[in-house]
């Protein structure tokens, strides 16, 4: 399978302090890769780096991050705009916070659509309704006409995923997308991401501390601790027969429902 996103010995530092050290892994096209680890382990930093979202203090200080063979590190503003959103999209923990509160979702989604070459409102509306319907939203027109605060947290996150899919990116980066949600809504968001892969063949990187989410979604899992990848492999193997002491301790600490 084609390696679509590749981290090659990447170090990432904030103000000279290393947050990620020597990250080496690849995301294959159509694959779902989970990144597990606790607070401060560097898992969010890892995917933000691919989007150029490290902020003024953050910098990739060694190695490379490549998308389809092309380095993502020294992109001009223009090049970055052709990649972010169109080729690689990202969703965050607080979906409501990534929308503007005083404009409808439809008008914000149109802006993103226009940014990537679309210009007709009618064509946009048809396309948005089509994507929302495919992703099994019960009432696509109503969602587009809503302000973010009129939707529940779960619906905001689902709308965020749908917005990302308008331009059919090859890669979706998801940073703790279910962590702020109740379990029943969490399940819907996980199912929507699985549907996205099924319908569009999107490769997904999901960063989460929720082992249940990884078990349900991920083909492979990377475990991070203190900025380093301590274990990587097939999801089932890593979760059920971990080799490293840290992964074992992490799995043992997760409360498991005895049904």
């Amino acid at each position, binding site marked *: 399978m084609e390696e679509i996103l590749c981290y090659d010995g990447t170090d990432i530092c904030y103000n000279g302090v290393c947050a990620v050290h020597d990250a080496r892994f690849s995301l294959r096209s159509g694959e779902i890769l989970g990144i597990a680890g606790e607070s401060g382990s560097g898992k969010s930093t890892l995917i933000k780096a691919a989007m150029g979202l490290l902020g003024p203090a953050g910098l990739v200080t060694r190695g490379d991050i490549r998308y389809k063979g092309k380095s993502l590190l020294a992109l001009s503003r223009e090049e970055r705009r052709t990649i972010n959103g169109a080729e690689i999209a990202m969703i965050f923990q607080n979906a409501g916070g990534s929308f503007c509160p005083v404009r409808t979702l439809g008008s914000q989604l149109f802006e993103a659509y226009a940014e990537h070459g679309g210009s007709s409102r009618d064509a946009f509306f048809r396309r948005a309704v089509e994507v929302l319907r495919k992703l099994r939203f019960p009432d696509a027109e109503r969602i587009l006409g809503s302000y973010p605060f009129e939707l529940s947290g779960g619906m905001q996150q689902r709308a965020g995923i749908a917005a990302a899919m308008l331009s059919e990116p090859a890669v979706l980066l998801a940073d703790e997308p279910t962590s702020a949600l109740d*379990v029943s809504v969490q399940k819907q968001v996980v199912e929507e991401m699985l549907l996205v892969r099924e319908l569009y063949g999107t490769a997904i990187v999901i960063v989460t501390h*929720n082992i249940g989410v990884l*078990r349900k979604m991920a083909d492979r899992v990377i475990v991070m601790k203190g900025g380093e990848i301590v274990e990587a492999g097939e999801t089932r193997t890593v979760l059920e027969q971990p080799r490293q002491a840290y992964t074992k301790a992490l799995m043992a600490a*997760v*409360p498991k429902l005895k049904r």
Partner: protein
Amino acid sequence: MDGPILSVRNLTKIFSRRGQPDVTAVNDATFEVRPGECLGIIGESGSGKSTVAHMITRLLEPTAGQIFLDGEEITRLRGAGRRRLYQKVQMVFQTPVESFDPRRTLGDGVGESLENAGMSAAAVREEVARLLAVCGLPAEFADRYPHQASGGECQRAAIARAIAIRPALLVCDEATSALDVTIQRDVIGLLARLRRELAMACLFICHDIALVQDFCDRVLVMHRGRIVERGTPDEVIRSPREEYTKMLIDSVL
């Protein structure tokens, strides 16, 4: 057998705001906690779990119903009565760092109730060190400010503060939800040990159903302000009767 340490009867809380429809956050809740027992409350955001906890600890005024602690009605206690209540009930919150005064040391926070009870400064210092040690923190944490401790360390200090006056009931509102799982396991281990050693009852509010199954003797399921199901964790999780409970359990990945 002793009577219940906590008895809640027909407790209701309606939030009214001008120009907006009333919100019934808790609707006719009735339950008991027996001495030494751990009762879990599960349910989704907005189901009323925390509102129940806030009424029991007198941080919110109930709209209707009654609350009895150790046989005494506390539903509308104020002033000195309410302060006396806190010698029997203590609370641990979700956000450990914010539950301490940022301008005072953790030692000041842990020792405050002892000081109020008339203990001398030297005795308070000694007891704070002992309490911190019980909760797995070195004595030097007494001199640290909340921002100088991690979330897990602050939560241990918050537990030390809560057990200082040996409460009969500890109310934990998502006390481990903000912690990483490895830290959560340690804090749960600490709470389990303290419950045994102090014979303390516990009201354990938590959205993590697996954790409640491990930690609690009985569990209530809340949905839209109502208690919709109750029983032992195994009864509720393995053979739920209500559709809502089934859906909730099925959603756990």
